[in-house]
């Protein structure tokens, strides 16, 4: 198995903190969140298994090439366009959320437009890079930040002020009314495999199909990951108290203190690491979206330079900047919930589509 594939899978497990996943889960903390998480994990592992295996059956090909080869043209272009927009929405949610986090926790004086401009300029530049280059950047950023983030998770786990009783309360409510929103939020941690839609172009070697064992391993790691992002904030702030926070994880990180470090508040290390994670996550998402949408749109050249990607990415930036005004934090949260549910629907549809395509390809 290619190591870059693991990075793509890990990326979303880290990025879920920024993508409002903990917030959604915490909102439903007394509505059977535990069972919802397990349902979400089971569903997304199924999607994972089918999608990744069917992509691996076409080594070196991205989803656009496969879809175009096996489905009618009208379907292929409309489907790819919608899927591409989905990736952009994922990138947009992460960016908008992190811009808001930046304004709240790091630079309250800076204008939101300027912050958005800063983030967008780097994300757009990254998205326009070659596909393999984005992977190299991803690898570097993950290798630097993953150990530190794990360290912070561990440190938070061994804190004497962590209240295990509050977490038990959540488990007690495991079977109360289950909500589809939390199922969708739980599945977000696993959707890293969707990046294969483009990154499969680089995996030119024929690989063996993924084994159930590997899927189980991913399931365990992901489940632990989701439960950490849900439970630790609750353990620090109490079952009732946690409901007051907009960004539960960042507020929790501020409750952790490093006695001997010259940076005392863990929050800042956490924030700086998460700037990296959210930027690379937005870059990878928007790169995937860009490549998919590019495959549908006509190419448009000026002085030997492909202009279409630049137009698409500028459009994305404009929409993101406008969304800052029309989709303030509260509305963005509602929108994200709809996105999570949509993610489930898309996953379902994609799974059936891929099964059908693999069957056609065999004939």
């Amino acid at each position, binding site marked *: 198995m290619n190591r870059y594939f693991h990075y793509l899978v890990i990326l979303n497990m880290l990025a879920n903190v920024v993508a409002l996943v903990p917030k959604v889960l915490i909102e439903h903390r007394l509505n059977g969140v535990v069972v919802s998480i397990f349902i979400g994990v089971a569903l997304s592992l199924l999607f994972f298994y089918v999608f990744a295996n069917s992509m691996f059956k076409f080594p070196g090909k991205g989803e656009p090439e496969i879809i175009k080869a096996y489905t009618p043209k009208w379907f292929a272009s409309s489907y790819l366009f919608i899927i591409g927009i989905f990736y952009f929405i994922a990138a947009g949610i992460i960016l908008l959320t992190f811009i808001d986090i930046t304004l709240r926790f790091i*630079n309250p004086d*800076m204008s939101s437009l300027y912050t958005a401009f*800063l983030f967008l300029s780097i994300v757009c*530049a990254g998205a326009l890079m070659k596909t393999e*280059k984005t992977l*190299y950047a991803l690898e570097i950023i993950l290798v630097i930040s993953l150990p530190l983030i794990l360290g912070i998770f561990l440190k938070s786990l061994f804190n004497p002020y962590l209240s295990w009783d509050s977490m038990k309360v959540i488990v007690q409510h495991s079977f109360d009314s289950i909500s589809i929103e939390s199922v969708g939020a739980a599945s977000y941690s696993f959707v890293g495999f969707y990046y294969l839609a483009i990154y499969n172009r680089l995996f030119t070697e024929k690989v063996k199909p993924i084994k159930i064992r590997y899927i189980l391993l991913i399931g365990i790691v992901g489940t632990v990951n989701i439960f950490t992002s849900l439970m630790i904030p609750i353990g620090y702030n109490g079952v009732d108290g946690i409901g007051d926070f907009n960004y539960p994880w960042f507020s929790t990180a501020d409750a952790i203190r490093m006695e001997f470090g*010259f*940076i*005392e508040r863990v929050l800042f290390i956490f924030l700086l690491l998460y700037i*990296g994670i959210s930027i690379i996550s937005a870059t990878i998402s928007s790169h995937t979206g860009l490549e998919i949408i590019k495959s549908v749109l006509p190419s448009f050249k000026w002085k030997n330079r492909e202009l279409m990607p630049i137009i698409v990415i500028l459009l994305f930036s404009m929409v993101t900047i406008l969304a800052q005004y029309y989709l303030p934090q509260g509305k963005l949260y509602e929108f994200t919930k709809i996105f999570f549910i949509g993610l489930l629907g898309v996953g379902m549809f994609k799974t059936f589509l891929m099964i059908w395509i693999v069957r056609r390809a065999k004939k």
Partner: protein
Amino acid sequence: MRRIKSQADTLKQLLEENFKSTEDATFKTLDNGQDQIEMVYINTIVDNAKIHDLFLKPFFEIDKINKYVSYIKSLNDYKEYKNEKEAMKEVLHGAIVLLIEDEALIVGLKLQENSAVQNAMVEATIMGPQTALSENINTNINLIRHRYHVPTLKVEKPMLMGEKSKVELAILYDEQQVKPEVLKKIKNQLEQINEPIIQSSGELHRAIIQNNKRLFPHLMVTERPDRIAYNLSQGKIIIMIEGNPFVLIAPAVFYDFMSAMEDFYQPYWVSKFLISLRYIGLFISLFLPAAYVGITSFNPEVFRVQLAFSIAGSRIPVPYPSYIEVLFMLIMMEMLTEASIRLPKTIGPTATTVGGLILGQAATEAGLVSNIMIIIVAAVAISNFIIPINEMSFSMRVSKYLLLFLTTISGLIGLMIGTIGLIYYLVHLDSVGEPYLKLFFDEKKQQT
């Protein structure tokens, strides 16, 4: 016969036209009673001591002119006459033209005064080979061949560099290790160069890379024969030019610039320690000034209270924002560095001591900069020089200002954005088609 006759005559005419007016051109007619021959050469670039032994003595001893011609043809550096243009070029590169009857014979007899092997100055090591290259291309190839005894080592001299300078250029590679597509690319790029004058590897480097507005070195410049031999064994291509003790190594990746040959000569853990020291140095020299501005001016709450207070305390007498303080000190430090490169060796230490003392002591006492700033500048200056390859340390010197600028206008966010931007930029670069920055390079099976 008619063709050969015109050959010698036209050549003689051409040579006379071009070189008669130069003082150092010699036109000599030898006559031993039976036969007459003509010699043409530029006496400042040929080995005058050998002329007597090689040409004059035999001419008067060998009685038959045919025998003399075949003697000349058997000489080591005899070159076939191709056309007038080639012959002219050879004369300019230190060849002797003999016009015997109707034939033109060319013998290379180049003398170069720069073939002394120099001590390694730029990339010195404590243990390990102490000598570097010379300024003579053939001596350099000799040095490398003595370190790399492999039949697949190929030396090519495909062209002369520069329309006017016309210096010799050699490409060395191990045929077995080299990637053919990289070799082809390098040769292509070399052919496309049309600069009038090229005299140093740095200049050649600039000419080879098409995008010549670059911040980071794409090819490596080195003076160490051991590094060259090592890189040959790694399948890299060496580009040498005449009159320069530095060669280019292509392709080069980011890690190459962070490695010293010393790493191979030390025990394993020592060398690992040294390498990590270098990365820490890189980190300090890049981020410290920017982080100082970001933390003191934007987010003092990042540090623990005691530290934040002591920094703020030392900044009490300073009457302006932190970025001016940092810029002022950094630029002073750069001036010192630049000055000590250009100064004569005898004055150098004086200037740096005086400069350092005045800057360090007086600037703080005058309340222009804080004490902590002095420590930071010193740390930045020292850790910048820890980067073993000079080119990279220069590039990092510049990048530091970009980060400083971003942090000045947007705080710690700017620092992070700048860092990620730097990673993106480095990742995005290519060196002759090979990725420039990528983790875990030496994996046997390349995955993507």
